[in-house]
């Protein structure tokens, strides 16, 4: 891992990007891995465009500033790609991970994206199938683990299981559905 990896989430209020950013940080934290996750609050309304951020580093993180040159941009609502500022500052060899029905090649052509690596996942549909809800942020986390190699799937799932067991102790079916969703996302994310 390089010294520090910076991730910027683009979503609409209510899509769970804040929670996903926090969950990612929590699941990666450990001895020798430092994390930071923070949302950028604007109007705080359902549907309003919002951003949240993750920093993952092998050294303690001291920065308290927003992320302007991310290594990864995650887009939970593909319509946000229509705003070119969504990709502002993304590194030349950076990763774009989009929740969309399209494949990476179509996304590249449709939005005229130069360089970078594009990955897509139909996260909304996956979430509908497994959770019966459009919680796209959940499978996007699974896809993110795959495309960044931040950790291995087993460690990640083990952490998620612990978290879910705390919240859904009385509903084991929810835990299993979530874990299956992460796994499917990990396998089904598409590259160019």
């Amino acid at each position, binding site marked *: 891992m390089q010294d520090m990896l910076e991730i910027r989430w683009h979503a609409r209020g209510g899509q769970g990007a804040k929670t996903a950013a926090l969950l990612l940080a929590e699941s990666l*934290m450990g001895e020798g891995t430092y*994390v930071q996750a*923070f949302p950028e*609050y604007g109007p705080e309304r359902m549907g309003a465009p919002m951003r949240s951020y993750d920093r993952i580093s092998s050294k303690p993180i001291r*920065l*308290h*500033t927003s992320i302007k040159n991310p290594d990864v941009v995650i887009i939970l609502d593909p319509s946000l790609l229509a705003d070119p500022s969504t990709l502002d500052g993304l590194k030349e060899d950076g990763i774009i991970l989009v929740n969309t029905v399209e494949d990476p090649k179509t996304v590249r052509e449709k939005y005229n994206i130069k360089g970078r690596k594009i990955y897509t996942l139909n996260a909304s549909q996956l979430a509908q199938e497994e959770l019966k809800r459009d919680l796209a942020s959940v499978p996007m986390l699974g896809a993110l683990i795959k495309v960044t190699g931040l950790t291995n799937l087993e460690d990640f799932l083990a952490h998620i299981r612990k978290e879910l067991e705390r919240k859904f102790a009385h509903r084991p079916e929810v835990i299993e559905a979530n874990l299956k969703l992460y796994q499917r996302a990990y396998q089904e994310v598409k590259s160019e």
Partner: protein
Amino acid sequence: MSQVAKELMALTGNEAAAYAMRQINPDVVAAYPITPQTELMQTFAQYVADGLVDTELVTVESEHSAMSACVGAAAAGARTMTATSSQGLALMWEVLYIASGLRLPIVMCVINRALSAPINIHGDHSDAMGARDSGWIQLFCENAQEVYDNVLQAVRIAEEVFLPVMVNYDGFIISHGVEVVETLPKEVVQAFVGERKTPYKLLDVEHPITVGALDLQDYYMEHKRAQSEAMRTAMPTILKIGEDFEKLTGRRYEAIETYRLDDAELAIVALGSTCGTAKDAIDELRDEGLKAGLLKIRVFRPFPWKYIQTALRGKKAVAVMDRAEGMSAVGGPVFHEVRSCLYDLGDRPPIVNYIYGLGGRDVSIEDIKKVFNELVPIAETGKVEDFYRYLGVRE
């Protein structure tokens, strides 16, 4: 450092404060919700509902009432805590002076937020700076770890010097950002904070006392002089508690923290979350050959003028960062005080003020580097043309 079992947790600044409060297990918490403090009290209220603390949580109808309830509880001998932000702190204003004048050891988290108008919910120091003369000890935190650590220390500071303590941290930047926080076991925290000491008990009917009696021309001044003495002599106690805390955790807490300042020619002075960003900026500048350094003020009240004087002696240029516009027309509040404490130095460094980050305006590494780069010509000529500046504002 001793080998206390510690746990790494991913916590927001608010969760770190709430977790510290849970481990302290205060007798009384009276609070009213306000962004960005809400998450702290919501988390703590959950602890109360889950029976994880023994605290009497008093939900009141305003911050004025919150602080009033705290005054009553603390006077009665209860270990008392609260939290607020911005307009909430402003509404507490008259009661803040009662808490400090009665020498009540209340601990309050102040999640720093801009003051209206225009209305803004984001981080700046306008609220805390407005309360800087209220007789409260004021600590400022750089990150979530310092929030946890300072809340624990604040309880002991308050109860040993008999002054209320504000633990300040930047709204959203720290309050809503998740960072890795090393926590102590509850029994270690309990042993560290100990039992609350009281010089008297309000509810002791065998030894009745009067609290808040009228004080006229013949005694008011003596009481204020005595209160001033408590603030003037608080620092050794604050430092001693910092040393005790370091023995437990290995983390050092003093009046100020310096970063690459000893051999620096150019220095900036700042409080709060910006200090972290400044450290990264300083590393980059050092690599570029500029002798840059940081003076971070942790204890703003009592004002650590001696430490600041010593740390800034001999610097070629100093920039003081104010995350509040004091509206004095001659610079921000931190600038005034830092500049004043350099007055007695024979060889005073030239000094400038930057108002920055108001209403949560982002502060980047580049912003900090810009400040240092603007110090270069000042250091060369020793001259300051315009000392009252803004950073990151559209002209």
